[in-house]
Structure formats: structure tokens, C-alpha cells
């Protein structure tokens, strides 16, 4: 394979990986504070893609406006799922929480399946997404450069929130020790709602980008993307935001490059994330940047 093609695939892999990363950050943050594998997270991504589509086609909102509306909608859905399905179970066994998460995932999927049928809906991104750009001999679409760029900016913002703001300190404290946080006079439920809002907004960006890059959305799109994003979060070390981004990029790059090198593996593309995950966990059981949750909290 010549180097131009390789560089092109590298860019594509980066843009795919950054979409996984956006979703993985939400997973990792929710896991950090609640120890919950939030199976509904991928479906929030799907819901926001539909919301953006609705804004663009029915309300004639421009793309960026639709993206912001989708983010707000996702935040509302995220906070609502926390209030309805997770908050009453704060003291219950973790497995009941997991089942309500699966329940929410089924609910969102089937609700959207019922409302919009299972046939894929076409999603038309703004024209500049498809514009070809030549950078030193390789030509890539503007979208595949824009997606990693915006992801990078968003991740920096999230890290600033987490490490520089008052709320970020509260979130990290919550991930460290829930009971002490309550003693310190912090309203844990409000902080958890914030984590859900932040994570869902990121999932919305991921979802809208996904729709823009692949032009179609279905009610079940969130499941596999969500699971791969969770695999990315675990790969990077669950609980770590930077780890989630690294994990997402690794999985995105492997998928694109492996399929480019070995086209006969394309049917197996969805398994790379998990095969990689198994190998990493065999040698580093807590992921690349992970902390051992079983033994201690952070």
C-alpha cells in the first residue's frame, strides 16, 4: 500500500476514533461516579442524531443550530434517565441499576423504532463536510478533519471542567468516595445529574458527527457503537477521561487500517475492538491508564 493511501486511512481512522472517544468519555465518567455500565448511553447518541435530523428537516435549522439543539435534547434525556431509572436505585445492588439501564436502552430503541420505523433515515450533512481538501498530496474530506479537531477542543474543555472548575473537583471527589462527599455538604445527586448532562452532550456531538459521516441513522445504531465505545473506555482504563480518548482512537484506527490492509476482514471489523480489549486486559488488567476499581476507588 502506498503512503498516500495509508495517510488517508490514518485521517479516516482518526475521525472514526474521535467519534468513539466522544461517546467513551460519557461512559467513563458515568462509570467513574456510579460504577454503572450505562448501556443506555449509545441510545442517547442515537436519540440525539434523530433530534438533529428532525431540527434540520422539519424546522429548517442550520447544522450548527441543530447540533446545539440536539446537545440540549440529549442533556434533558440524560438527566431524565438518571432521575427516573438510576436515582431511586442509588442504594440498591448494582445489578438492578444495570437492568434499568438495559430497560432504558430497550425503551429508547423501541420507541424510536415505533415512531420512525426501522428503515434507515437519510441524514444530509452540510455541503462543507464533503468538500475534498488536498494536504500535501493526500485528499480527505473536510468532515474527517473537522471531527477530530472539534473532538480535541471538546476534550480539552471537559478536562478543564474536570480539573479547574469547582464542579469538576466535586465530580472527582464523588468518584473517589461517595459518602465523604455527602459529608462535605456537596449535593451528590446534583453532581451526578451534571455528569449525565455532560456525558450526554458529548454523546450528542458524537451521534450528529456519526450521522454526518455515514449519512444514515437507524434506531439500533447506538447499540454496537455504544458497546465499542465502552470497550474503548475499558481499554484506555475506565474512569480516566484521557484513557477513554486514547482507547477510542486506538479502536478507530485499528478498524480502519486493518480493513484497508486486509479487505477480507471487513466482515470482522466490529470484533477488532473486543479482540484488542481482550489482549490488553490480559497483560494490563485495568486498561492502559486504569486504576484498579476492584481493590480501591482511584
Amino acid at each position, binding site marked *: 500500500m502506498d503512503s498516500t493511501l495509508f495517510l488517508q486511512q490514518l485521517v479516516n481512522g482518526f475521525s472514526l476514533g474521535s467519534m468513539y472517544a466522544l461517546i467513551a468519555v460519557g461512559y467513563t465518567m458515568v*462509570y467513574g461516579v456510579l460504577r454503572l455500565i450505562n448501556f443506555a448511553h449509545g441510545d442517547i447518541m442515537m436519540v440525539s442524531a434523530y433530534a438533529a435530523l428532525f431540527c434540520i428537516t422539519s424546522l429548517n435549522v442550520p447544522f450548527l443550530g441543530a447540533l446545539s439543539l440536539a446537545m440540549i435534547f440529549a442533556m434533558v434525556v440524560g438527566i431524565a434517565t438518571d432521575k427516573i431509572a438510576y436515582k431511586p436505585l442509588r442504594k440498591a445492588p448494582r445489578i438492578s441499576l444495570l*437492568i434499568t439501564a438495559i430497560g432504558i436502552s430497550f425503551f429508547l430503541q423501541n420507541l424510536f423504532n*415505533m415512531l420512525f*420505523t426501522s428503515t434507515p433515515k437519510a441524514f444530509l450533512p452540510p455541503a462543507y463536510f464533503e468538500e475534498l481538501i488536498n494536504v500535501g498530496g493526500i485528499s480527505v474530506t473536510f468532515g474527517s478533519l473537522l471531527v477530530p479537531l472539534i473532538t480535541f477542543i471538546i476534550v480539552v474543555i471537559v478536562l478543564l471542567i474536570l480539573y479547574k472548575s469547582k464542579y469538576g473537583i466535586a465530580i472527582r471527589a464523588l468518584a473517589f468516595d461517595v459518602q465523604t462527599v455527602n459529608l462535605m455538604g456537596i449535593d451528590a445527586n446534583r453532581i451526578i445529574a451534571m455528569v449525565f448532562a455532560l456525558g450526554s452532550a458529548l454523546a450528542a456531538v458524537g451521534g450528529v458527527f456519526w450521522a454526518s459521516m455515514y449519512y444514515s441513522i437507524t434506531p439500533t445504531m447506538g447499540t454496537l457503537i455504544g458497546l465499542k465505545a465502552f470497550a474503548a473506555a475499558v481499554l484506555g482504563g475506565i474512569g480516566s477521561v484521557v484513557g477513554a480518548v486514547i482507547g477510542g482512537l486506538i479502536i478507530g484506527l485499528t478498524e480502519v487500517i486493518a480493513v484497508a490492509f486486509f479487505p477480507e476482514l471487513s*466482515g*470482522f471489523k466490529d*470484533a477488532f*475492538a*473486543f479482540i484488542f480489549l481482550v489482549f490488553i486486559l490480559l497483560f494490563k488488567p485495568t486498561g492502559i491508564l486504569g486504576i484498579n476499581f476492584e481493590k480501591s476507588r482511584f
Partner: protein
Amino acid sequence: MMSRAKISHLTFLFLALAFIFVSPRIFSDYGMSIVNQIAIFIILAVSYNLINGVTGQFSLEPNGFVAVGAYVAALVLLSTEAKEEQFFYDGINPFILALHSPSFIVALLAAGLCACLLSFILSFAVFRVRGDYLAIVTLGFGIIIKLLALSFPTFTNGSRGINEIPAYSNIYWTGGIAIIAVILILNIVYSKYGRAMKAIRDDEDAASAMGINTFWIKTLAFGTSAFLEGVGGGLLACLLTTVSPEQFDFLLTFQLLIIIVLGGLGSTTGAILGSILVIGGAEWLRFLDEFKIQMEFFGAEIQTGHGLRMVVFSLILIFVMLFARRGIMGDRELLDIFKAFQKRFKGSEK
């Protein structure tokens, strides 16, 4: 004299046997297909409960073992001509073509043994990690097994699946094997091994310190549940007469997880009750799919097709979980509840 526990166990056995022989006379064909499905899900749920509820290892890959069982049983039962007819597109592996036995019991045993062997190999990888890491690794294997079925069409016929599998499964097979599975699982749970499994669930490090070889006990639980899940998969294949990779998505795993958590994690009685409620309930809600609504939503026309059933089902699931946090049975068995009742009555008499 027989103990009270033995008498009540025998009573339930008798009732279950009576049900198996009476049900074909009272239910329609459609009703029987649901009863058969419930019986198969009882096999799957009680065996999944052994690894997930009793041993406390959060495995998420029964769909993989069910898939292996279903494919093995289907390939063993199909005759050479039928295979050649169905594998027309990509050809067929000569070993698969030669593999044939008309006996249902041989097919089921092969299904169980293959799943068991796979679980044994996988246990070296999956039991290196614990807790939620185990969940995601096993979930990954479940997905990989499904993708393998899609990617090796000379073995599995790819996305076309395998059809016209002889419909051997009937209530005598499914119900009978369900009874055997429940008895087997209960015997394991109350044996020395079962106590070791529960010890691992409660505190793995302490169990290991007490001299329990945690890896082998976990492998044993994993292998037993995989064997029964494979047999269940074989029964499922011969009930539906068709297998395809889509049937064995991780949705199947989630369904089983819902069943055992709803019934009460760790309780075999709960797994049985959960299977009846979830499979029966989802079927009972089928009338909801008849609804078709057309509405206008901000100028966009929305037509609702099928699917209200699953929406309602998931809402019910969420609300049941909110109110019965430890599931219906908790970690108790049926006899524990009888005993609790007896104590309460004795208390009120005094």
C-alpha cells in the same frame, strides 16, 4: 421418613411432570410453541444463573454458547443432501458435510459438549480479570462468536443461516431436559462445589485464602452452564427449525440477564419464575403490536408501526426493577419462603 424438603421437592417434580403430559391436550399449537420456549429459557436461565448469580462472575456471553449449541445441533442433524442444497453459495467444509447423525440425543450432547469445550478454552482468558472487566470481556467474546458465525460461511452458511432443521423439539424433550437441568443445578448448588461457588461470590480473596481453588471452581461453573446453554441452543434450533447469526445477538444475553435478575439473582426458583414471566409476559403483550397510530408532529408525519409491545415491556421492566430491587425471589428458593411462612404462623400462634 422423608424430610419435609424432599416431600415438597417431589411434589413439584410431580406437578411439573403432570404439566408436561397434560399441556399438549389443553394448549393450541401456538400455545405449545410458547410453552416450549419457556421450557428452553428455563434451561438457559438456571444455567446462566449458576455462573452469574451463584458464583457471582458477571459473564455476559451465554448468547455465544447458545449459538454454538444451536449451530452444532443443526449441522449434526441435517442430512448430507440437505446441507449440500443449503450451502450452495460458498460451498461447504468437507468435515461439516461428513458430520451427520440422525439421533436427536447425539446432536444435543454434541451441542452441549462443544459449548462446554469452548467455555473451558475461554475460561483461561476471561478469568484473568474480575468484576466489570469480566463483563466487558465476555460481552466481547459473545459478539465475536456471532461475527465468526457470519464470517465463515463454509461452516455456518453465513448470514443465510441454516434452515429446515428437523423439528424434533417438543414438550417432552424441552420440559424433560428443563427438569433434568433444574435438578442438576440444584444438586450442584447444594453440594460442596456449590458452597465453594457461593464463597467465591461473597469474597473471592477470602475463599482463595480458605484453600478453594477459585479458578477451577469458576471454570467448573462456567463449563456446566455452557454445557446446558449449548443443549438449550440445540433445543431452540430444533424448535424454530432455523438458525441464523442474528438470533444470537447479545440481546439474547440481555434477555437472560433480565430473567435472572427479575427472578432474583442466585435463586434457581427465581430463574424459573423469571423465564415464565418474561417470555410469557412478552408474548401476552403481543396484542399491543396491533396498534397503529398516525400523527402529525410539528408538520412531520409520523406513522407508528409495530413495536408498542416492546416499549411497554421495557417500561414494565424498569418499574418492576424500581420496586423489586432484589428481584422477585431475592436470593431465596421456594422452600425458604415456605419456611419463613411457617415461622410466621408459629409466631402468631404463640
